[in-house]
């Protein structure tokens, strides 16, 4: 990166600019193998146990949205990073950066919601920190959570496990979280029917791993950058092509309409309660049945495959049988006019 350049919002968008920032500034400085893998969580060998360790900061606007709030999001998001790594979450931390002037009642609501989300997952929030900054130095409240989990012995996950012919499953409709938040931010009144999918995905992940073991090759929660970023990561890291079918990707019709209205590609939109799983073709149907048997996975679908003899690109086969390349989004999604 050239000197004199400044950080743009797009550097935090989870797209190509974010990756560039991490690769050019952060990885060389911290220089270690565990971090360089850029996995959802770091795997640490402690005695005979494998511990997964992850952290994430939450800076969402608005802090309350249909289907959740920043407190629930901060708990579920970190739990999910552990779950898709094949770990059973054990405990999390929570650090708050609060803007001077925030109503105490608002904070109480957020904390109650975080507590409830943790309780539902049988997780304790075991340590934390509180800082207050002067008005204008933060936007209401920022939350960081870190979490540790015990890696399940059956879990054999990683880009290296993926091979051509494997099947790609998504655990439900995509784009719900991102479109709900953006619609509320833009003041567009879809709120009544749009709802964030913000939820913990532990149940679906642990069941898949416990029952199907090494037939589950890889899991990821497609948050920032959506399905497009997650699938491009698979293509990039494995050097295999990825083929997905437009008609098979589950999308709530209202979410689709909202995305079209604001000019967004639904594949780029964030999810907060979904996973994609790459599984062996022979167990694909059983994995799908299992996902669908759980409330959180009732809309699960097989959406594509790891292609044979293909370039490392993500290709979408469209409803009219056209093909197009799906790219990692550049950065922040911008609403467009007309």
């Amino acid at each position, binding site marked *: 990166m050239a000197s004199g350049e400044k950080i*743009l919002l*797009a550097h935090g968008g989870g797209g*190509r600019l974010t990756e560039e920032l991490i690769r050019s500034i952060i990885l060389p400085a911290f220089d270690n193998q565990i971090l360089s893998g850029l996995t959802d969580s770091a795997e640490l060998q402690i005695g005979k146990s494998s511990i997964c360790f992850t952290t994430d900061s939450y800076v969402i606007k608005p802090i309350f949205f249909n289907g959740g709030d920043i407190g629930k999001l901060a708990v579920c998001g970190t739990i999910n990073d552990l779950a898709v790594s094949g770990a059973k979450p054990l405990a999390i931390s929570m650090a708050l950066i609060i803007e001077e002037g925030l109503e105490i009642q608002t904070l109480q609501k957020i904390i109650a919601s975080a507590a409830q989300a943790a309780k539902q997952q049988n997780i304790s929030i075991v340590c934390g920190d509180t800082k207050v900054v002067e008005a204008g130095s933060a936007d209401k409240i920022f939350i960081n959570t870190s979490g540790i989990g015990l890696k399940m012995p059956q879990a054999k996950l990683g880009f290296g496990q993926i091979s051509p012919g494997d099947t790609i499953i998504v655990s439900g409709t995509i784009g719900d979280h991102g479109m709900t938040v953006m619609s509320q931010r833009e003041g567009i009144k879809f709120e009544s029917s749009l709802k964030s999918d913000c939820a913990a995905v532990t149940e679906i992940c642990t069941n898949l791993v416990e029952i199907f073991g090494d037939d589950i090759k890889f899991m990821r929660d497609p948050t920032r950058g959506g399905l497009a970023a997650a699938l491009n990561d698979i293509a990039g890291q494995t050097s295999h092509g990825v083929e997905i079918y437009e008609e098979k990707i589950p999308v709530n019709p209202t979410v689709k309409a909202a995305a079209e209205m604001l*000019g967004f*590609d639904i594949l780029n939109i964030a999810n907060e309660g979904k996973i994609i799983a790459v599984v062996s073709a022979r167990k694909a149907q059983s994995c799908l049945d299992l996902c669908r048997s759980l409330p959180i996975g009732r809309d699960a679908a097989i959406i594509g495959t790891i292609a044979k003899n293909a370039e490392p690109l993500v290709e979408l086969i469209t409803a009219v049988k*056209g093909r197009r390349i799906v*790219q990692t989004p550049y950065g922040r999604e*911008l609403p467009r*006019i*007309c």
Partner: protein
Amino acid sequence: MLERINKAYKQIARANQTLGRRINVMEVCGTHTVSIFRAGLRDVLPDCLKLLSGPGCPVCVTDQGYIDAVLSLSERDDIIIATYGDMIRVPGRNGSLEQKTNKGNIKIISSAQDALNLAKQMPDKKILFVAVGFETTTPATAVLANEALNEGIKNLFIFSNHKLVIPAMEALLSEKNHRIDAFLCPGHVSVIIGSDAYKPIVEKFKRPCVVSGFEPMQIIIALSEICSQLADGTPAVASLYDAAVTPQGNKTAQKITNESFDIVDGYWRGLGKIAKSTLKLKEKFSSLDAEKQLGIQFIPEEDLSGCRCGEVLCGLIDPVECGLFANSCMPDTPVGPCMVSSEGACAAWYKYARRKRQN
């Protein structure tokens, strides 16, 4: 669905035979461009039908001089710039708004009404509304101007660079070397201007103008209609968009637009000056007119060195034929306007069809 596609193939083949060469259809609207790429329609259509991406993205056609004028105000502490999201990456001669957002005085809005709300929320700031767009967004600016005037809002300023679609289509057809056989006309603009607005084009230039929705099948059906007209030598206006498009259009929207704006000559990025193509606020709104109140200097652009957006917009070349495309001109470092918006012809090409270049 297959039946419909086969029917379209037959009409395309028929038109191809009548013309004795490849058929060139321009999709005027950027939303069509994106829809065509997202659906991979170019793959599905036979080679003898070529889709040209036209000038139909309001951001694409925004002149550098206009961006520079907006940028010149971004350093002022008393001004908040309210803009549609896709404008912030459009490069002027001295960078883009995205590079200036760190001061926190650039707000992304999704409707003209948001600018009025900002003005009320921040009475000690001057709100500059970056008013761009075609006939679909212009009425909202007109409503904004009228409301602000009626309510006596003193801190809202409108910098109008609204454009008209029809003069641009006529300008393209007046180019000597153009390759346009027919137009696929935008559904949402047509809801406002009415399908009769295309009649002069059909009469003067003998080119089919078919209004279509944005679903891939609707586009295929519209292309089938276009080719059937070309094969029979009967160019006409046809509307295949739902009942929302009437011959006369939305009279209310047209009325408030006509009462609020004067039609003047204007600069289009890549296309140059087009007569009677741009809208400026009428005299009665001069207290809201940013050009009059904020001392804006608007110097129209010179050529962008090496950038062939003009030819892309005119349908003379594909984006890949430009030397800058995917080299120095990328979505995160756009040179020309067509790379800037997600709807721009080059951005859409880069995003969805880059493999074509690799082959």
